[in-house]
């Protein structure tokens, strides 16, 4: 018998862009209307091609002030006094509209962010809709959240979100805030404002009362104006630890409540009794999902030394099958890096990794000429002292470390300034429970990784931030009388 080994080439299968119409320019969404911002407008590009998608208004401090005043009015006049069951109806309506317009949101997200359409279509958008469905159900049941009877909303929430999951992070912030009876001023990330602006359109389509949701696009200064505004009662931020720290400083000494969801350097621990093939899948899902632009990414692989070579060989074979390229192609696994700035950081840290003595491995893969791209990368021979084992790279770069005993695995996993997530791979249930109890991480996945659900609280230890989003716990961040 002979093998001819004909390669099975997948023809291009691009999702059509025509479902999305992008306007030449966008204003701010304040008090139910699109208005021009008074700051200097900026452009947003498709990171896969560097093509300019559109021009977006930048919110100045005065614009932010208008937005906060609109939110305050809505809180006092419409949304706050509204029957909770009616607030729930609006949220259900928004959830359904997100589902109806799912393809539009998915295509726009992939265009603006660079993530593969498979992920925006199968993960980001469905989870965003699910988040609204979930919190819609809570809107008229707040007495039963477990925070005592009649917990009260805080008022106006100022929310600043990152570029890695633009629509999903919006949903994580907006849905619980609204369900609890607050109104919001949200600042999307500078490089990915478009799905938030499409969401503004959905708010209008849902007849959401004016001022309940305000979206102010812009860069760091706009975000600072939101966070530091005197009439904001609550600040919620997801993003880098550095910015989080400055927000904590700005908010210190004020009445504002604060939740921070910051960086991570999660350990993905693979024991020698793990289901190896699924563990390899989980390692891939852990670090290459969304190009590694995931705060809870499994960026440190801790593998038991006795199976190190076997796991690395399997991992390399599997990485060789990842399809890097056009984010709109339905068969793409890894899309574009979100920005030139982020690409530079990934390159810099990878070069430091190599200079410090770790072994870099990348599959043979052709990258497009234009746009921002980085191939999936693994570093072996990484020591806990290396910077690639300590600093968050926020890209498709995995650092591989080894351990000999469960105690050593726990010690190394916890030896980080972060504590957002962790993974454990073992077929032994008792071991999973024992190790999970010792890990200082907000989320511990067992025999899976990067799985999200609106019912599950999410948040970190240490420099990964504080407060929880999602589930019943996520409501506590938006309610008074919530702290017993």
């Amino acid at each position: 018998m002979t093998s001819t080994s004909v390669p099975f080439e997948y023809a291009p299968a691009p999702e059509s862009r025509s479902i999305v119409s992008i306007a030449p320019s966008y204003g701010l969404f304040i008090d139910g209307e699109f208005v021009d911002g008074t700051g200097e407008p900026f452009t947003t590009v498709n990171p896969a091609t560097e093509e300019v998608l559109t021009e977006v208004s930048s919110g100045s401090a005065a614009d932010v002030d208008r937005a906060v005043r609109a939110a305050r009015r809505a809180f006092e006049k419409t949304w706050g006094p509204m029957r909770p069951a009616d607030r729930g109806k609006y949220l259900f309506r928004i959830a359904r509209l997100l589902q109806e317009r799912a393809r539009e949101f998915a295509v726009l997200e992939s265009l603006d962010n660079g993530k593969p359409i498979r992920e925006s279509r199968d993960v980001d958008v469905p989870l965003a809709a699910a988040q609204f469905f979930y919190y819609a159900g809570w809107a008229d049941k707040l007495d039963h959240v477990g925070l005592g009877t009649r917990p009260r909303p805080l008022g106006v929430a100022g929310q600043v979100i990152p570029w890695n999951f633009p629509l999903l992070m919006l949903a994580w912030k907006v849905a619980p805030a609204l369900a609890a009876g607050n109104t919001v001023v949200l600042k999307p990330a500078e490089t990915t404002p478009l799905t938030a602006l499409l969401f503004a359109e959905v708010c209008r389509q849902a007849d959401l009362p004016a001022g309940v949701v305000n979206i102010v696009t812009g860069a760091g200064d706009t975000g600072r104006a939101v966070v530091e505004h005197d009439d904001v009662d609550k600040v919620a931020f997801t993003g880098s630890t550095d910015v989080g720290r400055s927000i904590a400083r700005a908010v210190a000494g004020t009445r504002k409540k604060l939740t921070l969801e910051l960086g991570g350097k999660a350990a993905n621990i693979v024991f020698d009794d793990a289901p190896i093939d699924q563990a390899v899948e989980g390692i891939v899902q852990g670090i290459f999902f969304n190009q590694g632009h995931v705060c809870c990414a499994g960026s440190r692989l801790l593998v038991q030394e006795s199976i190190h070579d076997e796991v690395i060989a399997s991992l390399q074979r599997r990485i060789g099958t990842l399809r890097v390229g056009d984010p709109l192609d339905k068969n793409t696994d890894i899309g574009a890096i979100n920005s030139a700035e982020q690409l530079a950081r990934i390159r810099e840290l990878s070069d430091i990794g190599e200079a410090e003595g770790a072994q870099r491995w990348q599959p043979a893969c052709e990258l497009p000429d234009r746009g921002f791209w980085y191939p999936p990368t693994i570093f072996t021979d990484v020591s806990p002292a290396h910077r690639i084992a300590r600093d968050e790279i926020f890209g498709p770069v995995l650092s591989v470390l080894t351990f000999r005993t469960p105690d050593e695995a726990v010690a190394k996993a916890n030896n980080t300034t972060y504590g957002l997530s962790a993974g454990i791979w073992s077929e032994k249930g008792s071991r999973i429970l024992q190790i999970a109890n010792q890990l200082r991480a907000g989320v511990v996945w067992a025999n899976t990784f990067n799985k999200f659900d609106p019912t599950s609280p999410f948040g970190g230890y240490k420099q990964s931030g504080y407060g929880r989003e999602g589930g019943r716990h996520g409501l506590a961040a938006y309610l008074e009388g919530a702290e017993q």
Partner: protein
Amino acid sequence: MPLAAQGRMAGMTHVLDPDALSDDARALSVPLPPYRDVTRSDSAFRAFLHGLPGVDQVGAEARVAQLGTRSIKTTSKAWAIDTAISMVDLTTLEGADTPGKVRSLAAKAMRPDPTDPTCPRVAAVCVYGDLAGVAREALGDSGVHVAAVATAFPSGRASRAVKIADVRDAVQNGADEIDMVIDRGAFLTGRYMDVYEEIVAVKEACGDAHLKVILETGELVTLDNVRRASWLAMLAGGDFVKTSTGKVSPAATLPVGLVMLEAVRDFRAATGRQVGFKPAGGIRTTKDAIKHLVLINETVGPDWLDPDRFRFGASSLLNDLLLQRQKLRTGHYSGPDYVTVD
């Protein structure tokens, strides 16, 4: 081989067919290196099979679901359809099978689409052993193989001697591929050496005919069992591992396929021997077939995208492949009257 097992087998074969098991079979029973010693005793074999890495069912299902979203269009779809047709084991396994039915199937196997001579022929016709001769004669030198199910298919509930006789009969009738069933009862009670020795004996009885070992995964149920049974069959010398008889549901599911493909991949990496894979039962549409081709492509790679290494056990699949093929050629869907009834 343990003495007790030899005694059992000698006792069985003596009754119906004194030469059913020869000394050669015992020589064959030593697996390839580096696994020569894993069958030295019942306990060693058990320890080996239970020492294989476990399979996480949730993870396996998630992986095949992700691969199921691959979008295979235009030129790659045309390639996939022709490749799938060339890998079909066109099957009829009914009590009502007759020489006429088998001849009609053979004609279809050689020329699946009478309106289009560029349509590839299928890989084999699969029948019960007593009709293998009819199929052989009808297929002539067309290159289409004759596969026969044997070993008290589908249940496998007969004495080993009867099973061996069944195999010999099918081979004598002209089958050049034998699809055997494993003894699931023995497997589920942990008598792995019995299952192993039976496959070795059947392989010997096959002579030059290729042996496909049907695990009947719908009765093994867990993916851990599927992985162990796959390794058992490969160590015993099976040329193919096959999911199902088609008589038990569920049959060829994608998670089972994933685990079996991982097994043949790992077995080749360890021993250098490439074992084929045949999902059978429940694959009825072009979409299902393409999902399997994608699964192969991304689990074991193109080395298995070859009729010598991969087959679809199916009956109604072929007509759907032909309809989709016509659709790609003409741009519109036709209907069941535009393909032949079997």
